[in-house]
C-alpha cells in the first residue's frame, strides 16, 4: 500500500502586513509559516490507511523552495516515510494548475494506490490543486472528503456538500481525494519523532515542462475604504425587511 500525500507550507498573517516591492505577493517578513491545516488531516488519514493495511509507505510530496522543508518535516515527524520536494525558480508564486503539473510528474512516477491532498490551502484558498492533479493523472477524484473506507480496488467515501449534506460515493482506486478538516484528529509529533524526521530523506527534483501559467497575480493591495456601513438594529424580521428594502433600492438604481 503506497499513499502519496501532497502537502504545502502556508504563510499566516500576523497583525500587520506589507507587500513585496513588485506588489505581487505578501512580504515574507510579515508571514509565519506552517504545514497547511488541511494537509495535516490528509497526512493523518494517509498514516491511518497505512496502519490499517499493516504495511506500506506514505510519501509526502511538496512544491516549494528549501524553506518549505519545515512543513515537509512536520509531515515526516507525524510518520510519513519519506519526502519529495519539487522546485525550480519558475515555480515561485505559481498558480494551482502549474503546481499540479509539477506534482503530477512526481506522483505518477510513484505509482501510488491512493493520492490524498488537503481540500485547500489556508493562504491561497483556491481549492484547485487536488482536482487539477486528478485530471492531469487521469484518476478519479472526490473533493471535500469527510470519511474514507478503503476496500480492494475501490473506496467508499463521504463528501461534504453545501448545507450540511453528505454524499456517499464509491470510487475506484487509485484515486485522488481532497481531505476536509475534522475527518480525523491529527496526531502530534513527539520530540523524538521530530528529531527522527530530521534524519529522514527528502529527495529534491526539478520539474519538467510546466507549460504556460494558467493565471498570474497582477497586483496585491489593501482595498480602499468604502462608505460607512449601515448597522441594522431590531429583531430578525425587521432586519430582513430592511435588507430587502436596501436590495430593492440598489436593484432600481
Amino acid at each position: 500500500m503506497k499513499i502519496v500525500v501532497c502537502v504545502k507550507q502556508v504563510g499566516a498573517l500576523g497583525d500587520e502586513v506589507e507587500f513585496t516591492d513588485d506588489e505581487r505577493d505578501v512580504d515574507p517578513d510579515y508571514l509565519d509559516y506552517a504545514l497547511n491545516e488541511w494537509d495535516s488531516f490528509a497526512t493523518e488519514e494517509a498514516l491511518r490507511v497505512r496502519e490499517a493495511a499493516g504495511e506500506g509507505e506514505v510519501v509526502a510530496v511538496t512544491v516549494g523552495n528549501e524553506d518549505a522543508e519545515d512543513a515537509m518535516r512536520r509531515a515526516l515527524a507525524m510518520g510519513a516515510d519519506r519526502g519529495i520536494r519539487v522546485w525550480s525558480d519558475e515555480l515561485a508564486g505559481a498558480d494551482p494548475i502549474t503546481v499540479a503539473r509539477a506534482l503530477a510528474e512526481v506522483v505518477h512516477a510513484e505509482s501510488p494506490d491512493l493520492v490524498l491532498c488537503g481540500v485547500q490551502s489556508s493562504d491561497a484558498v483556491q481549492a484547485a490543486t487536488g482536482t487539477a492533479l486528478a485530471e492531469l493523472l487521469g484518476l478519479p477524484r472526490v473533493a471535500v472528503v469527510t470519511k474514507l473506507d478503503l476496500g480492494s480496488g475501490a473506496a467508499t467515501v463521504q463528501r461534504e456538500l453545501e448545507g450540511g449534506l453528505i454524499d456517499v460515493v464509491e470510487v475506484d482506486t487509485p484515486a485522488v481525494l481532497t481531505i476536509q478538516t475534522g475527518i480525523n484528529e491529527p496526531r502530534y509529533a513527539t520530540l523524538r519523532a521530530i528529531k527522527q524526521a530530521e534524519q529522514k530523506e527528502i529527495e529534491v527534483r526539478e520539474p519538467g515542462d510546466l507549460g504556460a501559467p494558467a493565471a498570474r497575480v497582477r497586483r496585491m493591495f489593501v482595498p480602499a475604504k468604502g462608505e460607512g456601513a449601515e448597522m441594522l438594529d431590531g429583531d430578525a424580521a425587521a432586519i430582513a425587511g430592511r435588507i430587502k428594502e436596501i436590495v430593492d433600492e440598489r436593484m432600481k438604481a
Partner: protein
Amino acid sequence: MARDPRHDILFEPIQIGPKTMKNRFYQIPHCNGFGSEKPMSQAHFRAMKAEGGYAAVCTEYCSIHPESDDTHRVSARLWDDDDIKNLGLMCDMLHEHGALAAAELWYGGPHAPCMESRCVPRAPSQIPSDFEYLTYPKEMDRDDIREVQGFYVEAAKRAREAGFDIVYVYGSHSYLPQQFLTPYYNRRTDEYGGSFENRARFWRETIEQVRDAVGADCAIAVRMSTDMFLGEAGTQLERDCLPFVELCDEIVDVWDINVSGISEWGEDATPSRFYESGRMLPWQKAVKGVAKKPVLGVGRFTNPDVMVEAIESGSLDIIATCRPSISDPWLPRKIDEGRLDDIRECIGCNICISRWEIGGPPLICTQNATAGEEYRRGWHPEKFEPARNADNDVLVVGAGPAGMECAMILGKRGMRRVHLVEAGEDMGGGMRWIPQLPGLGEWARVVNYRKIQIDKLKNVEFIPSTRLDAQGVKEYGAEIVVIATGAYWATDGLNGCSHDTIPGADASLPWQLTPEQIMFEGKEVPGERVLILDTDGYYMGVSLAEKLAREGKKVTLMTHLGHIAPYMHFTLEAPNQHRILHKLGVEIVPYHLPSKLEAGRVLAGHVYDEEEHQHEFAADAVVLVTQRRSNEALYRELKDSVGIDALRAEGITGFYRIGDCEAPRLTADAVFSGHRLAREIDTDDPETPLPFKRERRVIEREAVPA
C-alpha cells in the same frame, strides 16, 4: 508596532505645580514590603516602572516621624538623614528613566501601633483604632497640633533633599489629616472640630506649611478619600470633600482621589470578585468638576480604552495605577508600542496586598512572578537571557499556571523546542474552572495572557488532549523533563487540623463532593441541605458556599478556625464576602470539626471542648474543602519505578517538578515556581533555587567590642 492614535491623549505631558509629567501614567503610592530599610529592592522595584514608561512613581506611605510607626507592617520612613540616603537611590533611579519621584508623607494617628518605636501616636480624639487592636492615641492639644505639623514640614524638607519631586499630605485611608476632617474620628469642640471650617483647619494649615517649605521645588499632592461609607459620621463627598477641594485648590498642585476608610480599604483596592475596573470614577469626576488643578486616581485600569474614556469624560487628568503596575510595570510602554496583547493584566486577586496586611513579607503577584524580585534575584519582567543549554528540547507535562509559565519563559529564553503537553483539551489546569466560581471571572487572565504569549512563541508547541504515562515521557525525546501535573482536593477528609482523615469521608460516594467534582466534573450536589467543610482557609470554601446558596441550597459552612476564610482578610475580600454569605442565609459554624460523616448527617464537635460533645448537623450533601494533595503519580513513577538512571539512558539530563505537583500552593507561588525553574534552567543545579540577595546589615566582628 505603533501606538493606536486613539490612545495619544495618554501620552500628552501635564504640568503639576513646578513639575511636568511626560505622560499621564502615574504609579500611585503602594506598599511592597521594602520601605526605606531595603533600599536596593525598593529602588529597583520602582525603577522597573519608570523603565516601563511611567511618568511618575511614588513610594508607599512614608512615615514622617517615629510616632507614626506601622510595625508590624512595612512602610517607608523619612525620619532622619540615613532615610534620605536610602530613599534617595530610588529618586536617582527614577530620574535616570525620566520619571518624577513622589513621596507620600504619612502620619497614621491611632492606626499606627508603634511596635518598634514604642512612641504614642497622636490623634484628634482619644478613640482607639478601628483597624488595629489596642492602639490608643493621645488626644492632641494646640501644642501637639503645631508639633505634628512641624513633623510634616521637616519630613517634606527631607523628601526634597532625597530628590523627590512630589510630596503628599496624605489623608485617605483614614490617616491623620482626614481624621481631622471626619466626625467619626474628630469629636473635638475647639477650633479644630465641629464645623466644616474647623474640621478642615488642620489639613489646610499643614498643606500651607508644607507648601511654604518646599512648594517652590516640589509639587504638592493631596490624597483624599471622598466617601468612607460610614454614613453621617464618615467623610462625605458633598458635605466635606468638594468644599475642601474648593478651599485648598489654590495651595494644592494635584488631587489624588479615592474612596474608603482604612478598616475596609478593599472599597478602594477593590477585589475583582466584587468590582470592575473604574469603580471610583463617579467620585473622581465629582472632584474634577470643582478642581482647577489636575485630578489623578486609581481604578485598577488595565485597558487603555477605559483610561482614555476616564480622561475624555472629564473624570481624571492622570491615570494612576497600583495593582496593574505590579502585574505589568511596562503597562504604559506596551500601550505606547501598540502591544496590547502583551499586557499582563491584573486579575484583582489582591494577593499583593495580602503580604502587606500580613505584615513584613515582600509583595508577590499572581500574574508577574518577577514582582519584588527585580533586585534580589535580578529578574526583569520583559528581558530574558538566552539559556546556556538552549540547544536542548524540553517536555513540560501539565499546562496549569506553573507549566504554562515555565514553558513560556523557557520559550523566551530560546530553548530549541518546548512541548507543553496537557491531558485536558485546553490550557489552564485548575484555572480552567476556578474563574467560574462567583466573581472570579477575571482570574481567567492568568490563562489567557500565557496562552497568547505561548501562541506567539515559535519554539513552544502546545499539545492538548494527550495524557502521557511514564513510558510516554521517557520516550518522548526531550533532554529536559518538567512535571507540572498539579494537585487535587483530598477525597477522604485529610486535613491540617486533625492531621488525619475524617471517618466516613469518601468523595466517591454520591453525597460527598470535592470542589473539582462540582466545578469541573459536573457531579450533582444532591438534596437541599449542604454542609461545606472548610479547613483550607482561603477562597474555595466560601466561593462554593456562595455558589450553592445562590443555586437555592441551604448551606452550612463549617470550619475548625475561628473565622471562615481568614486569608481573605488579608486580600480585603472578607467584609463583602461575609455580607454576601449573610444575605444568602449561609449558616457559619466556626471552631468545629466533624468526627463522622454519615448519609444525611454530620457529627461534629467544638475544637476546644475537652469533653468532646458531639453535635448533629443535618446534611444531604457534604463538600470536602479540607486540603489539596499533589498529583504526583507520574513524577513518582518516573523517579521511583523507571528511575533516574533509566531516564539518563534515554538522554534525559534534567528531570524536575514544579508548582502544585510538588506541593499545593497559591497560584502566585505556582507561577513563581514555573518561572524560577525556567530562569535557572541552565544553572549547575536547577532544582535548587539560587540564593537571593538579602538586604541586611552585616557586622564586622573585629570592629564590634566583645
